C-alpha cells in the first residue's frame, strides 16, 4: 500500500543519512523517489556527498567511498527490517585503515540484534571480531576448519 511504502521509505532514508554520517565522519546522503510516476512504481535515486566534497554523480565516488555508501544503505535497510544474521564477504577489501575502523565500530553498534559473519583478509577486521574461524586447504581442493579462537 502507498502509505506503508512511504513510511518505510522515510525511516530507511533517515537511517541511510545517519549511517552515512557515522561511516564517513560527516557529509550527507539521501534517497529520492523519482516522482515522475506513481509512488508505487517509481525508481529510487541515491544522493551522497562525503565530508568537504561537493555533491555530484555517485559514479564519480572512489571505490572505497562507493563501498561505504552501499554499506550505509544496506545497514539502513537492516535497521528498519532486521535480519538476525548478515554475511559480509570481503566488503572491507577496498577500505583504508581508518574506514575499516569506522566500519567495524558500526558493526559493533548493530550487534547483538544482528550476528555478523565477516569474511576478510584484513587484520583490523580480524581484531574487531569476537570469534575467529580459520579455513585452509592442507589437502588441495578440500576445505578444512583449522582454528577457532574466542576473544573477550
Amino acid at each position, binding site marked *: 500500500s502507498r502509505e506503508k511504502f512511504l513510511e518505510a521509505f522515510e525511516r530507511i532514508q533517515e537511517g541511510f543519512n545517519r549511517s552515512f554520517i557515522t561511516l564517513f565522519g560527516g557529509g550527507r546522503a539521501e534517497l529520492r523517489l523519482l516522482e515522475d510516476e506513481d509512488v508505487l512504481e517509481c525508481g529510487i535515486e541515491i544522493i551522497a556527498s562525503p565530508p568537504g566534497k561537493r555533491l555530484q554523480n555517485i559514479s564519480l565516488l572512489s571505490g572505497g567511498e562507493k563501498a561505504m555508501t552501499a554499506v550505509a544503505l544496506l545497514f539502513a535497510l537492516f535497521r528498519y527490517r532486521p535480519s538476525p544474521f548478515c554475511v559480509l*564477504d570481503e566488503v572491507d577489501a577496498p577500505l583504508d585503515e581508518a574506514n575499516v575502523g569506522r566500519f567495524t565500530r558500526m558493526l559493533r553498534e548493530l550487534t547483538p540484534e544482528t550476528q555478523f559473519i565477516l569474511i576478510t583478509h584484513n587484520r583490523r577486521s580480524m581484531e574487531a571480531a569476537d570469534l575467529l574461524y580459520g579455513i585452509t586447504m592442507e589437502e588441495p581442493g578440500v576445505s578444512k576448519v583449522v582454528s577457532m579462537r574466542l576473544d573477550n
Partner: protein
Amino acid sequence: FTLDRMEIHGFKSFFSRTAFEFRPGIIAVVGPNGCGKSNIGDAISWVLGDQSPRSLRADRMSDVIFNGSESRRPLGMAEVTLKFMRTNGGPAPAEEFVVTRRLYRDGNSEYCLNGARCRLKDIQEMLLRSQVGSRLYSVIEQGKVDLILTARPKDRRGLFEEAA
C-alpha cells in the same frame, strides 16, 4: 532467532563433514585465497532455499556438489544443515529449528525441517514466521556490495519493497 550451528558435507570444497558453531556478535572467517570462505556464505544461501545457481557462481545446481580434487573422487550428494535457536530468557525453554537441504547427482533434491522431510515451501514459511529474514540483504557476496549503487533506480526498489 540466531544462527547456532551449521554442518556442511559435500557442498563445494567441503568434502569432509565440517561443523561451525556460531556465537552472538562478530565472527571473522579468514584464510588464503581459494580455501573455501565464500563457499561457506554460499552454503548458507543454499540451505535457506536459493534456487539460482548463478548467485552461487555455478552454471548448474549440480556444480555445488563436491566435484573431486586431484586426490579425491567426486561425491554423489551435497548436504547443508543449519540450526537456529532462540533463547527466551528466564525459565522459558529455548526454541530451535533445524533446516536441511540435500542435492543428489541425479538431480533429486530433499528438504527437511527438524529432521522430517518437507517441501521448500515449508522451509520458506518457517523462515518468514521466525523472521530469520530474506536472503536479499542477509548475504552480501564478494565483489557485489556496490550493485545497489549501480542498479537502475527501479531495480533498487525491490530491496525497499521487501523491507517495507
